[in-house]
């Protein structure tokens, strides 16, 4: 039996015992205290159920406010000693208890025999997708068509480097059609439109990249970048990197460190098991010599970024001021001059980024793309740094945390929150009205007495006889203030 199960049985049993104590206690204050104990146990059960917010609200609101109110009223009314011995309904206790046990048995026994409830898994949410424009083209119109959509989803006039908002679409296969924003001319024939498949519960960025080159017959293409909005490890941010810039070279995203220089070291070549690889040398005394290689010493954040290849997902510790560089890894060795390895290797840097921040609990989509230039200038690499958008707070914030619940409450459930606030206001006003002093104020009593004296001749006769005024005390409901 696991620790958690034992804990559940202990706390649950304690909760039931407290509830029974509340029922059987003769003193109302003791009952209230038993109920407080029961609420405390239920709060701990809430914590076991991944509901920290609800657990704390249970303690603060239920035990801290509602039960205190109960205790106040019990003390105010002096109602501690409850008189429950009534002869009339003695049979009720036994019957009710028997029925209660029968009810519990009727539900619990089939459940135990049947091996538990048949509970379906939670439905994963619809996929969310956004379009990112990383192609060497002017503004684009992007159209998503698929069987699951009634009408095609059109994103209009997307500028370079711009990303649309995340949109929820049904899961399925889609074909992406790219068109120039001006004139809406399609960039490729419909038969060549790339298709993407979106699965439920995932978040994607659809990146349009490439160029339209009628000479070489190349069309812009579309890549699906996964955005995994699950929580990152503590103090780390996530980077999704993609190479949309260089078709020939494999790039890598490297953290240069404080010196802002690529650093290389020379080391032995090792094979997969870690053994040193030796090369044969045509020398009699020393036939074997360890092979040496020069490798990059800086930390590589994302490696193997091929053009149009798989996007690389990596996590990296957070920091305000990283000096990053995009380094050409395919020809890495070719940059190294033997006489000045550290200096010459700087030529392998394709792009530098200084002062780059990596924030924890966010995801950054890192696309190296070609900036569209109209002149004949050399195409420059640029970084599409379109987001630190914090999406899907509920997954980033953790299930059941106050952040997640607050996010939902004030977006999806804003109207019910306002209505409940109004309800509390009405309850407040109602309580104040009900707590007004009963009976008439002395002013009203005087006024009524005056009226009574004038309008009742018989009373006048009596008062004449007896010599005192006669006031009739008629039981009547409290009149509201009539204002006269």
């Amino acid at each position: 039996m696991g620790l958690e199960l034992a804990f559940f049985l202990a706390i649950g049993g304690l909760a039931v015992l407290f509830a029974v104590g509340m029922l059987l206690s003769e003193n109302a204050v003791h009952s209230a205290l038993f109920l407080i104990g029961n609420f405390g146990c239920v709060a701990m059960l809430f914590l076991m159920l991944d509901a920290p917010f609800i657990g704390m609200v249970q303690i603060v609101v239920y035990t801290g406010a509602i039960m205190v109110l109960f205790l106040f009223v019990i003390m105010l009314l002096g109602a501690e000693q409850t008189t429950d011995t009534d002869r009339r309904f003695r049979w009720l206790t036994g019957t009710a208890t028997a029925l209660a046990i029968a009810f519990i048995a009727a539900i619990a026994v089939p459940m135990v025999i049947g091996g538990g409830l048949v509970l379906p898994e939670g439905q994963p949410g619809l996929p969310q997708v956004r379009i990112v424009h990383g192609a060497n083209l002017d503004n684009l119109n992007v159209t998503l068509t698929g069987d699951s959509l009634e009408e095609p989803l059109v994103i209009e006039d997307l500028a370079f480097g711009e990303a649309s908002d995340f949109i929820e679409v049904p899961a399925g296969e889609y074909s992406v059609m790219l068109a120039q924003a001006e004139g809406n001319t399609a960039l490729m024939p419909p038969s060549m439109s790339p298709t993407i498949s979106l699965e439920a519960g995932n978040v994607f960025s659809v990146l349009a990249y490439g160029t339209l080159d009628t000479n070489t017959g190349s069309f812009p293409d579309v890549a699906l970048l996964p955005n995994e909005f699950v929580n990152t490890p503590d103090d780390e941010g996530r980077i999704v990197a993609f190479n949309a810039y260089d078709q020939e070279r494999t790039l890598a995203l490297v953290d240069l460190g404080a010196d802002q220089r690529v650093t290389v070291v020379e080391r032995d070549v090792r094979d997969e098991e870690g053994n040193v690889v030796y090369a044969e040398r045509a020398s009699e005394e020393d036939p074997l010599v360890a092979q040496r290689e020069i490798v990059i010493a800086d930390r590589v954040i994302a490696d193997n970024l091929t053009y149009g290849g798989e996007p690389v997902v990596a996590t990296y510790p957070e920091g305000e001021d990283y000096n990053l560089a995009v380094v050409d890894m395919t020809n890495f060795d070719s940059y190294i001059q033997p006489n000045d390895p550290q200096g010459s290797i700087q030529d392998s840097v394709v792009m530098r980024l200084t002062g780059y921040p990596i924030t924890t609990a966010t995801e950054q989509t890192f696309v190296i793309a070609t900036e569209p230039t109209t002149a004949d200038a050399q195409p420059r690499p640029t970084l599409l740094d379109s987001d630190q958008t914090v999406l899907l707070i509920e997954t980033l914030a953790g299930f059941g945390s106050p952040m997640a619940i607050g996010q939902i409450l004030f977006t999806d459930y804003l109207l019910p929150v306002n209505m409940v606030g109004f309800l509390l206001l009405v309850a407040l006003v109602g309580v104040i009205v009900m707590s007004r002093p009963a009976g008439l104020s002395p002013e009203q009593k005087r006024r009524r007495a005056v009226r009574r004296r004038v309008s009742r001749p018989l009373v006048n006769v009596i008062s004449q006889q007896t010599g005192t005024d006669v006031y009739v005390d008629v039981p009547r409901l409290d009149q509201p203030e009539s204002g006269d």
Partner: protein
Amino acid sequence: MDFVVPTEFFFVLSLVLFVLGALGVLLRKNAILVFMSVELMLNSANLALVAFARQWNSLNGHIFVFFVMTVAAAEVAVGLALIVAIFKSKRSINIDDLHQMEG
């Protein structure tokens, strides 16, 4: 996905607490005790809601519990004010004595 403590356990516990609350409503004669039993029933419903919210990985259960708690708080305030007002006029909160509205 299997939980160490299955959802059915929490459901049965919620059921037991609910039935105990219902017994309290039926059997106790003090109006405040009846009220506290109603709170116990509401609490057991909250427990079931949160257990199923965990099962289905949906925060809607938590939101519903939040609203139930808020409405229960408002209800307790109004109900206790009512009991105090009744006590002022009838000097008793034994529910057997509060039968003015019966036909």
